[in-house]
């Protein structure tokens, strides 16, 4: 598939989620931490978008903000979140609760701790149906069984009365997925759904998610810092650094021709992707804490960037559109793209 044909396909998709200038802060004794600092992106029906970046860059906070799950001291201080055109920021708490787990669902990283240890699988699943579709109470069990079947749990009948600790990690994550998909959501947010699982199980789970989402036309926001997973799963990729989007591109384009030095660094530091280029390069410097970044003038990545110039250190670059579906936050995006091509 060429870039342009993919593009065409994207445009025909209906937009499920559109995020516009989202800002989430954590109030602390010092200056507020800008965990999410003006993030915008969108996801279409059936599309899988990966959100990547180093630990602490704001992926989870972004995800939680989307369902307004941020609680004090965190606070969403600006922006809009449109789910199929509805602005969630203007909804009441009760309306948001009607949407959560219904039109938009979420899966968390730790399958053991994310399931309630003292409730049976059946109760935790049926609860979603009871909450959002009380009129279908009677069929709840049948639906739960059906969904467990779909996520590939053997002997679903037998598992209904199991407690989470009686299931393996992979099974638990399947249960989580079943729980999230039960009410047929338009948007599924998966925050590092496979990080805690071993590699073979990881692949199965990802495969499962992709199949189910495409069957049901569910938009998938997949949060990960594993670029291998991104390459497998995503249609499009959003790269975050220090609470901001630094690059956005279709998956192939991104790997073939990253436009931001940070993205390039990420790719080079990932074994599976980097090995064919002969060397593994770590991004120099420590991942900065958000508090440190408050002091950084200019580009937030400049302190760690090998290409940084005086301009980078004094002026903060905007997110520049580099073409349809492409953008990067770098003064030298063109040069970056070229050097990568040259290397290739």
């Amino acid at each position: 598939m060429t870039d342009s044909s993919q593009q065409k396909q994207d445009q025909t998709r209906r937009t499920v989620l559109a995020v516009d200038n989202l800002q989430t802060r954590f109030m602390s004794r010092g200056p507020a931490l800008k965990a999410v600092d003006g993030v915008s992106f969108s996801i279409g029906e059936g599309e899988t978008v990966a959100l990547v970046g180093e630990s602490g860059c704001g992926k989870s906070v972004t995800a939680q903000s989307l369902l307004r799950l941020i609680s004090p001291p965190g606070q969403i201080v600006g922006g809009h979140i449109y789910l199929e055109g509805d602005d969630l920021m203007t909804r009441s708490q009760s309306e948001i609760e009607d949407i959560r787990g219904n039109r938009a669902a979420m899966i968390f990283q730790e399958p053991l701790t994310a399931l309630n240890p003292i409730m049976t699988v059946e109760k935790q699943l049926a609860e979603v149906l009871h909450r959002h579709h009380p009129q279908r109470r009677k069929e709840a069990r049948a639906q739960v069984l059906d969904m467990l079947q779909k996520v590939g749990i053997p002997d679903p009948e037998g598992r209904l009365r199991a407690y989470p600790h009686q299931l393996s990690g992979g099974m638990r994550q399947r249960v989580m997925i079943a729980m999230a998909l039960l009410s047929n959501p338009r948007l599924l947010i998966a925050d590092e759904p496979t990080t805690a699982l071993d590699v073979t199980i990881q692949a199965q789970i990802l495969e499962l998610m992709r199949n189910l989402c495409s069957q049901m036309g569910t938009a998938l926001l997949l949060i990960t810092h594993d670029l291998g997973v991104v390459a497998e799963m995503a249609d499009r990729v959003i790269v975050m650094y220090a609470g901001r989007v630094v690059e956005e591109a279709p998956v192939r384009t991104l790997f073939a021709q990253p436009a931001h030095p940070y993205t390039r660094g990420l790719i080079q530091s990932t074994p599976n992707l980097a090995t064919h280029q002969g060397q593994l390069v770590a991004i120099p410097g420590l991942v900065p804490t958000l508090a440190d970044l408050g002091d950084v003038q200019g580009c937030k990545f400049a302190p760690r960037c090998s290409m940084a110039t005086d301009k980078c250190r004094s002026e903060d670059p905007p997110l520049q559109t580099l073409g349809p579906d492409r953008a990067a936050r770098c003064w030298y995006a063109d040069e970056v793209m070229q050097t990568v091509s040259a290397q290739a």
Partner: protein
Amino acid sequence: MTAFILRRLLGTLPIVLIVGIITFFLVQLSPGDPAMFYVSADAPPQEIERVRTQLGLDQPVIQRFGFWLGEVLQGNLGISFHQNRPVLTGFLDALPVTLWLAFFSLVIALVVGIPVGLLSALRPNGLVDKFSTVFALIGMSMPNFWLGMLLVLLFAITLGVMPAQGYDPTSFWTGFRSLLLPAITLGYSQAALVARMTRSSMLEVMRQDYVQTARAKGLRTPVVLGKHAFGNALNPIVTVIGLAIGSLAAGSAVVEVVFNLPGIGRLVVDSVMRRDYPMIQGILLLTAGMIIVINLLTDLLYAIIDPRIRYD
């Protein structure tokens, strides 16, 4: 599970026996002569000796122990010196008051402690939380009898709406009325403890991923807190309740004396004062047994609350 309960119950027998042996020697070797209470102040030594013989105190203590142990193993706790009737009868006469008192104070501890703890966990450092911190501090530092006397002064003497003392078992209602002030006295400090424990346990649980999951499912806040968070916060609370029952047993001695309730607590205090050896030994033995059973029940409760805990 049944096997576990049986094993535990069998395992408690030696403990009860050891408690019995220790209390026997503690009681019998402590200074003081029970015979003193059954002779006049100017009685000559022969008279005292006669009473000692009558009470069986002329035998060497080791021989008395052997006899007592033999009887206890046959389920016979002996005859109270003072009451002149089987220890068990005296104990069972006094037991209902103490059980009701413990029950009501536990209800107060839970009915007050849990909601206050929940509310303060909901808004840490909020108004309720600050108020409950003060409430807990007072509860844990004010001696039981002092609170009891204040309550009596206010509700019994000044307002005249509650009895100042005594237990009227005519009906459930009169019994409840007699026990309300004592139960508040006893339950208050426990309520404070339960509130603090509920608060910290809830705060801990509310940080857990599954609470986030529950919220992400769109569940209403009361369901998230009541079902998902509170259910998981229960274990430490149950521990505190188990401990509370133990301290209720201890605290009831003071409260029963202050409120003149004819329960086990007052009986044991009186029995110690008059050196009623069989009664003291019997009460301690039976109370130890009861506390051990309560501990067992607490452990079983853990398993009911948390399916991860299994006893087999």
